[in-house]
């Protein structure tokens, strides 16, 4: 007998429909799985047969053939367990006719344990989204994946074990249909235990971070150890604007693919990723045998914080260039090309020299000039060109530490950021752009009109500082954000002049002879 079950699979972070066909025929007992399954899928054989037995059904002692259609695409994941088990039950005649009929109306996703318990699996949300786009209306999913599934726009029924699924199909029990979450009314919990006002002094760096939050710009903080770089970066999340519905769905899909959603229950802050500097290129950018999103994609619509920026391997830093420019990562293989979104704000922090104390007012730096210039040269020109704001942090000495004002709280800064984002939302209505930093060239032309005296300033700066064309674009974008923060309709000369101050690393033109 033949039985066909609808399920889904992932290609990158996109889902697609997979039909699980099970055929049982007379012959020597065997189980063959075809349709390019990879190791995880192949192991389903053993799990499924045990689960069927342990749920009180018979595991057929016949020749079983399972095919995953479309058969030419490689498939991975443990979520085929449930559809395969149901297919075997159906094909071996262990289900009634009503159940057989009902089987066709649902989509099944789920991993099985040997006891028949259904476990959660990765990538449920993007799979369900793809299924709902294809017109599928109802899905049976593991209870563990309930939360993410509620955003997919498809009716979902959550199940705990195989027996329960069969009882449901046989109409012995009814499953409660899960409420669909209307993402519009997300209960966004934003509880931060940290606050910007906890960082003493560092007004310049705080201002730069405020601009970065308001326009999605990249920041490089440079300074001796203990000046508050990491502290500031960690608090950067507290001043970011709240997530939009679209943005959150994008994030959820990526996290679902990586199987990280369960750990983020009800937590809808912007992602803040801070990988260690020993991270491999693949882990940072994404890829691997079954291409998975890397840290840059996990930081999508959020923050990628790279502490000890200069300690990252040179190649790791250079692979960042593509996502910083195009806001996505493309992984090209002979067979397929995958694209992961990677629109993040980069916050980088580094010491000014190998020992860390160059420019410190008390501690003496032991590094030779060669070492210092080599250390700084680790950040290549093209990469620096993609960083909009660079600030130097100075150590705070005690008397200053005592009297230095605490500055605004996260809440105050956030309000200004949200106001600036509101202006940008109006500006980019009906376009894919979400913030000033992500403007296209034509948008820069349209929205970043130079004031008369501003052109003069830029010309002078270009002549004296040797700015590249790309850095001009970046200056314009950042100036636009500063104008937005001020609520100014036009970019003013002062805005440009402020932006030009945030470029200490490429200051060679003026200070070094």
């Amino acid at each position, binding site marked *: 007998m033949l039985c066909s079950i609808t399920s889904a699979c992932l290609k990158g972070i996109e889902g697609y429909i997979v039909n699980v066909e099970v055929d049982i025929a007379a012959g020597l007992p065997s189980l063959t799985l075809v349709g390019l399954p990879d190791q995880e899928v192949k192991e389903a054989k053993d799990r499924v047969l045990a689960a069927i037995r342990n749920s009180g059904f018979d595991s057929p002692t016949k020749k079983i053939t399972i095919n995953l259609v479309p058969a030419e695409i490689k498939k991975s994941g443990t979520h085929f367990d449930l559809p395969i088990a149901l297919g075997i039950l159906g094909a071996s005649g262990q289900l009634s006719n009503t159940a057989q009929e009902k089987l066709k109306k649902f989509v099944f996703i789920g991993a099985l344990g040997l006891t028949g318990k259904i476990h959660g699996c990765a990538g449920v949300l993007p799979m369900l989204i793809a299924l709902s786009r294809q017109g599928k209306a109802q899905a049976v999913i593991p209870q563990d994946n309930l939360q993410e599934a509620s955003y997919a726009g498809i009716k979902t029924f959550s199940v705990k074990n195989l027996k329960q699924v069969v009882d449901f199909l046989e109409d012995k029990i009814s499953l409660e249909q899960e409420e669909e979450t209307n993402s519009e009314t997300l209960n966004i919990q934003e509880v931060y235990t940290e606050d910007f006002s906890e960082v003493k002094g560092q007004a310049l760096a705080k201002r730069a971070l405020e601009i970065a939050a308001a326009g999605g710009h990249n920041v490089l903080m440079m300074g001796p150890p203990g000046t508050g770089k990491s502290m500031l970066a960690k608090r950067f999340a507290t001043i970011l604007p709240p997530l939009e519905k679209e943005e959150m769905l994008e994030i959820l899909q990526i996290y679902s693919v990586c199987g990280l959603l369960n750990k983020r229950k009800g937590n809808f802050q912007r992602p803040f990723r801070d990988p260690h500097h020993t991270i491999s290129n693949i882990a940072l950018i994404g890829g691997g045998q079954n291409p998975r999103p890397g840290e840059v994609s996990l930081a999508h619509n959020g923050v990628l914080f790279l502490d000890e920026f200069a300690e990252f391997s040179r190649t790791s830093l250079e692979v960042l260039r593509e996502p910083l420019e195009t806001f996505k990562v493309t992984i090209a293989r002979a067979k397929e090309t995958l694209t992961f979104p990677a629109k993040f704000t980069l916050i980088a922090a580094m010491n000014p020299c190998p020992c860390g104390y160059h420019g410190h007012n008390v501690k003496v730096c032991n590094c030779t*000039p060669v070492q210092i210039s080599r250390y700084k040269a680790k950040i290549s020109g093209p990469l620096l060109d993609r960083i909009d704001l660079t*600030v130097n942090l*100075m150590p705070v000495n005690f008397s200053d530490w005592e009297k230095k004002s605490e500055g605004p709280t996260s809440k105050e800064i956030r309000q200004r950021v949200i106001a600036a984002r509101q202006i940008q939302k109006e500006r980019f209505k009906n376009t894919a752009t979400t913030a000033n930093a992500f403007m296209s060239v034509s948008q820069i032309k349209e929205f970043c009109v130079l004031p008369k005296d501003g052109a003069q300033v830029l010309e002078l700066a270009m002549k004296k500082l040797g700015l590249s064309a790309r850095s001009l674009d970046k200056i314009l974008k950042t100036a636009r954000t500063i104008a937005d923060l001020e609520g100014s309709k036009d970019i003013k000369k002062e805005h440009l002049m402020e932006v030009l101050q945030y470029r200490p690393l490429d200051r060679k033109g*003026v200070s070094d002879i």
Partner: protein
Amino acid sequence: MKYEEKLARLKVNSFSYLRSDWLNQMIEIFSSAQELLKQDAKTISKEGKISLESAESFLKSCSMLDGEKEMEKVEKVGGKVLFNGEEDFPQRLANIKEAPLLIYVRGDLGDSERASVGMVGTRKISPYGRRAASKLAGDLAQSGVVLVSGLARGIDSVVHAEAVKNQRPTWSLIGTGIGRCYPAENRELARAILETGGAIISELPFDAPPLAHHFPRRNRLIAGLSDIVVVVEGEVKSGALITAKIALEQGLDVMAVPGPIDSPTSGGPNKLIKEGAGMALSANDIIDAIPSTKKFGLKVKKLYNESKAPSEPLTEQEQKILDLIGESSKSVDDLALETDLQIAQLSAVLFSLEIAGIIICTDGKYSRSKF
């Protein structure tokens, strides 16, 4: 001097681990460099009172260098080799205690007996050192003095750059062969030095790498080609002080630029002043110390005539910020605390001052670029 002897001397000169007065002595003993090269290691070891190993490595190094090829390389870059004992060899260099056997010159040395001032200092330059070096070197270059320095980072680079800016010749004594540029970032500066009629000089073989022991040795040449040595900045133990010591041994006047007593990089010059070195407070002080026979023709700047108004008058805010910076260096945060300006406004003011060349920013701190 015969061409063959010159080639032999090029070979003899290739071993930079032995002092040049030893080489001179050996050439004297064996009457010529050609004869010296014919000896075996044992004889050289005995006559030169050096170990057999040293003599062997000396001969090995000599045999490695092809004199004619070396000459070709030098000519290819438009340089020349001046031999001690020939007429065109700078007299003042021949007179020093450890006179070089020969020097490689790229560019134009011109009249090597011209009034010249050696200016040396630290590679780790402070904003004050930069201001002082740039002011003194600029004024000296304008007066017609040839500036002598070592093309290193920091003070050396500022001194050479001032000469170039004023279109005046400057002599650069480097610690590598003239076929190289160290540090590499000064390649442009080296080119500019040659273009403005200056010279790059070294006693090392054409391709010699920047080895640590090369640098103290070239310091004696800086002193040798200078009438006065001025130490701008440098720690108490530094190459600049070695140069000062050598200059004193050679009987030159040494002057120093006084600095803050708590600045480590001014430790060297302050110590020199305490020990009796002249204080270089202006270019005039330095010119005054140049031997009177050479002073003729130098345009001495009148004091206190340089309060020229800047091309564009400063705004009230700019002047206020400039006054706050004063002689120190301050970060944006410091300034924000001392004024009631927002970071945004402050940044704009600092930028206009920076672009006008009135202040400079190093590692996030602003200081005046000129006195």
